[in-house]
C-alpha cells in the first residue's frame, strides 16, 4: 500500500466520520462548522480524483458560500424564539425510518449494480476537443457539448435570487438587501477589505480566463469576485445596491440572456439551437462566459446579502 493510498483511505474515513458527526450533532452552529470542514475535505477528494474543476467549485460553493449561508441561517435560528418542541408521533417516525431504509437500499443497489466498465462519454469529449478551440475538456462539455444544461443552470440561479427577493417585506420591496454594515474605519476588517479585493479581482479574472485551457471557469472566478464584493459590503465600505436598479437587473440577466441569444442565433444561422459555427466557437464561448462571470458574481453576492430589508430613502 503506497503512502498516497494511506492518505486517501484516511481522507475518506475522516469525511465519512465528519458527515455522520454533522448529522448527529445537536447544535446548529456545530453542524454548520462540521459541514464547512466536510466541504473542504470533499474538495481534497476531488483533487485526488484529478477533477480540479469540481474541487474548485466544491471549495467555493460547498465550503465557502454554502457555509456562509448556513452560518447566517444558524445565527438567525439562535436569535429567534425557540419553537415549541413538537415530538413527531410514532407512526411518523416509523414511516420516516422505513423510507430512509428504502432510500439506502436503493442507493446501495444502484452503486453495486453499476456496469463494469462504467459507460463514459469522456473519450468522445476529449476526441472532439478541437471542435471549439478550447483545451479544457470540462469547459468544452459545459459550454459546448452540454451547453443547454449550463444555460438552464444559470436560469435556476436567476430563479433563486427572485425567490430570495420575494421574502422582502412590502415596504422594503426594491430596496437595499441586508443590514447596512458599520465597521471601525481604522479596524482590521476595513484594512482587509481595502487590501484584498485588488488581489482577489485579479485572481478571479485569472481563474475565469485560464478556464479555457486549464481548470477554472466562470463559476469559480465569479465566486471569488462575489466574495470580494461581500467583503467590501461587510466592512461597510460600500452599501448593497437597491434591487430595483436597472443596471443591477441587467447584469443579473446578462449571462443567461446572451446565452439564449447565441443559442437562437445557432438555430437561425446554423444547424441547431446552441450550435456554434466552428470558426467563431471560441470567441462566442468566451463572450458568453464574460457575461456569465458578471451574472454569477452579482447573483452569488446578492444571495449572500439576502432579501431587501431597507427601502430606498
Amino acid at each position, binding site marked *: 500500500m503506497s503512502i498516497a493510498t494511506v492518505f486517501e483511505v484516511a481522507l475518506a474515513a475522516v469525511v465519512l466520520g465528519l458527515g455522520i458527526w454533522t448529522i448527529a450533532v445537536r447544535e446548529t452552529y456545530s453542524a454548520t462548522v462540521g459541514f464547512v470542514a466536510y466541504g473542504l475535505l470533499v474538495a481534497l477528494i476531488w483533487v485526488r480524483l484529478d477533477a480540479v474543476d469540481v474541487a474548485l467549485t466544491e471549495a467555493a460553493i460547498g465550503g465557502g458560500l454554502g457555509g456562509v449561508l448556513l452560518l447566517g441561517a444558524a445565527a438567525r435560528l439562535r436569535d429567534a424564539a425557540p419553537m415549541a418542541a413538537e415530538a413527531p408521533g410514532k407512526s411518523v417516525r416509523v414511516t420516516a425510518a422505513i423510507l430512509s431504509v428504502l432510500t439506502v437500499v436503493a442507493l446501495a443497489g444502484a452503486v453495486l449494480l453499476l456496469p463494469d466498465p462504467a459507460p463514459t462519454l469522456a473519450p468522445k469529449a476529449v476526441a472532439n476537443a478541437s471542435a471549439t478551440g478550447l483545451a479544457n475538456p470540462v469547459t468544452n462539455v459545459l459550454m459546448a457539448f452540454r451547453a443547454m444544461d449550463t444555460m438552464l443552470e444559470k436560469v435556476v440561479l436567476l430563479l433563486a435570487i427572485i425567490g430570495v427577493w420575494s421574502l422582502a417585506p412590502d415596504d422594503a420591496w426594491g430596496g437595499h438587501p441586508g443590514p447596512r454594515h458599520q465597521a471601525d474605519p481604522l*479596524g*482590521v*476588517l476595513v*484594512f*482587509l477589505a481595502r*487590501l*484584498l479585493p485588488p*488581489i482577489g479581482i485579479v485572481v478571479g479574472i485569472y481563474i475565469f480566463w485560464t478556464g479555457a485551457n486549464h481548470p477554472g471557469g466562470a463559476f469559480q472566478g465569479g465566486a471569488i469576485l462575489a466574495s470580494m464584493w461581500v467583503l467590501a459590503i461587510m466592512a461597510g465600505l460600500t452599501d448593497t445596491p437597491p434591487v430595483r436598479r436597472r443596471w443591477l437587473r441587467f447584469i443579473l440577466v446578462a449571462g443567461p440572456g446572451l446565452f439564449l441569444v447565441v443559442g437562437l442565433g445557432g438555430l437561425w444561422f446554423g444547424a441547431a439551437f446552441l450550435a456554434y459555427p466552428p470558426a467563431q466557437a471560441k470567441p462566442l464561448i468566451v463572450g458568453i462566459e464574460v457575461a456569465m462571470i458578471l451574472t454569477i458574481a452579482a447573483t452569488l453576492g446578492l444571495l449572500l446579502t439576502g432579501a431587501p430589508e431597507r427601502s430606498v430613502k
Partner: protein
Amino acid sequence: MSIARDIITIAAVSAGAFFFLAGTVGLLRFPDTLTRLHALTKADNLGLGLVVLGLLPQAASLRDGLKLVSIWLLGLLAGATVSQLIARTARQGEPAK
C-alpha cells in the same frame, strides 16, 4: 543536487507538520479563546510557511514557486485578520473588569 533539495524539503515540511500538530494540540488543550488563538496562529504562520519553504525546491518553475509563496502570504493575511476579529469579539464578550 537533487538529494540536497530533497533533504531541505523533508526537513522543512516535517518541521511544518510539527507546528501544525503543536497548534492543533494547543487548540484542543488550552483553556481560553485568546491562548487557543495563539496556538492556532503558530500553525498558520510557521507551519504553512515551513511547508511552503520545503516545497519551493520541488517547484517546477519560478512561476510555480511564486504561486506557492503567494499562497503563504494570503494565508498569513487571512490568519492574522481572522484571529484579530475573533480576539476582539472574545474581549467584547468578557464582563468588564
